[in-house]
């Protein structure tokens, strides 16, 4: 068949096919279409996303001609995808997520130091607990603070929340009957271990910045959570991850759960008569202290100068007291702006006030890149203790050794 084709026609076909293949690569980059379009990649829960879309609509209404495109990701994918895209010179103008993502992204020089990018005095508006300085710079503009774990309880089952470890255990045991568990908690994730670690006077890093996981505090914290999870205590399901704990609490099959402000909207929507309280006092007489963090906006290094003002304007809008208050009231999160933090909508709301008090008891989550390694090496040890295959002492030792090895590998 080829032989019957005229020479020119045959080459024309080949050239056309080549053009078809190569044409998509010549398309302009979508993320760099001038100040009229700002793309943001974000990690948000569904309720938070719905609320954010309203903020976007309000901004677009006030700024005709500006389009904001929000692309949702989960936490891990957000960082990975942004890392890949931004390292290649593309990606969105803005990235919104938990404060610890600034560690790796700033180290990779993929986000701008905002203390040098935003207008002078911009960061004076925020409560001090909202700001994370890393290597002498601020890398994110927070629109909320929190991420702190609290005791959430079903008021129908728990009229008054327990204040200390003895009360907690007694209450949980009494409530465990007829297919209902007294307590449920994600025991697979180290973030849920952190409040107990801090309560026992431990922390994930020592003062010199090195991991401090093989400590008496870690052994006590692991031992305490293992006790709550144990069959002998019998207040929790045999396997309990985030989904199981959440489902049981939503279905009224768990009286108490440890979870953060991000979950409250779904609980209320699910018909749970929700009460919240700070985490209880541990057997050593000290409060379990949740990790606290902020969520905020970072600006990509790839944003061209001519687009920067538009991006800064949008970030300023999202971190305004009005926008933060709207989010705080709708979602139950705490605002980062001083004016919003002290607003009567927050201080006179019983739930938000408790959340605010619990937040002030928390310890800031480190944003250094090594934090990722620490989370990751804590997870196996925690799970081994929870499934009874390792003692807290051995798990703590294993965590420390793994952390040192992995951090050395990262820096090699």
């Amino acid at each position, binding site marked *: 068949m080829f032989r019957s084709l005229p020479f*020119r026609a045959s080459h024309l076909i080949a050239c056309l096919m080549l053009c078809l293949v190569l044409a998509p690569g010549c398309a302009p980059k979508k993320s760099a279409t001038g100040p009229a379009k700002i793309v943001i990649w974000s990690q948000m829960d569904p309720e938070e996303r719905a609320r954010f879309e309203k903020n976007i609509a309000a901004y677009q209404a006030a700024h005709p001609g500006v389009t904001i495109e929000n692309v949702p990701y989960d936490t891990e994918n957000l960082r990975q995808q942004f890392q890949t895209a931004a390292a290649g010179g593309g990606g969105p103008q803005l990235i919104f997520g938990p404060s610890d993502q600034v560690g790796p992204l700033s180290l990779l*020089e993929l986000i701008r130091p905002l203390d040098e990018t935003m207008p002078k005095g911009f960061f004076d508006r925020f409560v001090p607990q909202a700001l994370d300085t890393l290597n002498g710079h601020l890398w994110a503009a927070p629109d909320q603070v929190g991420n702190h774990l609290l005791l959430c309880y079903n008021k129908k089952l728990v009229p008054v929340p327990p204040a200390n470890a003895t009360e907690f255990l007694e209450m949980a045991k009494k409530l465990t009957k007829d297919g209902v568990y007294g307590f449920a908690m994600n025991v697979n994730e180290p973030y849920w271990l952190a409040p107990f670690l801090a309560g026992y006077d431990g922390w994930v890093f020592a003062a010199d910045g090195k991991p401090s996981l093989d400590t008496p505090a870690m052994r006590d914290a692991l031992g305490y959570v293992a006790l709550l999870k144990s069959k002998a205590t019998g207040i929790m399901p045999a396997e309990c991850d985030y989904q199981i704990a959440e489902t049981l609490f939503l279905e009224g099959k768990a009286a108490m759960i440890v979870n953060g402000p991000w979950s409250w909207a779904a609980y209320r929507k699910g018909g749970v008569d929700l009460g919240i309280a700070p985490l209880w006092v541990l057997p050593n007489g000290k409060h379990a202290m949740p990790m606290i963090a902020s969520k905020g906006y970072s600006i990509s290094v790839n944003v061209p100068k001519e687009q920067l003002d538009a991006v800064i304007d949008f970030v300023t809008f999202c971190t305004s007291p009005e926008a933060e208050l709207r989010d705080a009231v709708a979602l139950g999160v705490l605002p980062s702006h001083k004016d919003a933090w002290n607003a009567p909508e927050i201080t006179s709301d019983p739930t938000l006030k408790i959340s605010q008090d619990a937040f002030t008891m928390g310890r800031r989550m480190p944003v250094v890149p090594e934090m990722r390694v620490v989370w990751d090496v804590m997870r196996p040890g925690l799970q081994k203790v929870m499934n009874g295959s390792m003692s807290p002492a051995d798990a703590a030792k294993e965590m420390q050794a793994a952390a040192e090895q992995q951090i050395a590998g990262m820096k090699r």
Partner: protein
Amino acid sequence: MLRAPRSFPYSLLLPATIVMLAVVLFPLGYSFWLAFRNMSLYHFRTHEFVGLDNFQLVLTEPIFWTLLGKSLVWTGVNVFFHVALGVLLAILLSGPVRGKTILRTMLVLPWAMPQYISALTWRGMFNFEYGAINLILKQWFHLPPVPWLSDPTWAFVAPILTNIWLGFPFMMVVALGGLTSIPADLYEAAELDGANGWEKFTNVTLPSLMPVLVPSILLGTIWTFNNTLVVWLVSNGGQPADATHILVTYIYKVAFTYSRYSYAAAFSVVVFLMLLGFVVYVMRRTSSQERTA
């Protein structure tokens, strides 16, 4: 009229060749290049040539050999059951069965489902207290519940079961195709020779299926060895306690959790070379057998 020159077929192949170079050869070459450098979170823009350091690290760390063992078990068990179940069901379906079309469609369903949906559904079914599997074991067979997701051994069995369920339809479809091409007179001749069912299977069916099964097993082995998704999703990223990793899931974790890109690239290169060696060995063996035959 001018005729198309000999170069014309090559010019038609050119677009596909360019795409292949861009999406296959370039990443492969880049991985090799990266494996000899020290790119990581701390040396992302300032990485340099480190020779064979990464390979030395990969091959001297005990975890490599543990993971290799697990990968071989994972691949061997999966491919064995894929082929055994696939061929068995194909033979059953090629016989006189009522509702053959419906049965065939139902059996192909696991293959048609997106892998991540199947994997996450299976993870839910493996829950100790509320999962369908333990409920069935308890209520129908009066067996104690199995800690599918919390015990390191069972947590490795769980993704294997999931992948067997996901993978057998492919082998079944391949075997069904192969079975239809076996001439009926071969069976008639075997019957005349007095062969029983098993003898007909081993002497007629299986040898006739081999030309289609061998490439499929080869593909299946590589796919299974490199299957990150099922292990990762069913075990929720290697849980419990990183006990369910195979080589490729560990590489994924090292690259994207610890950002040790060059180390992960060296790991990938080692896995690639192992698979390449396996493919070359199998292809040489089968082609020498064909020549002998």
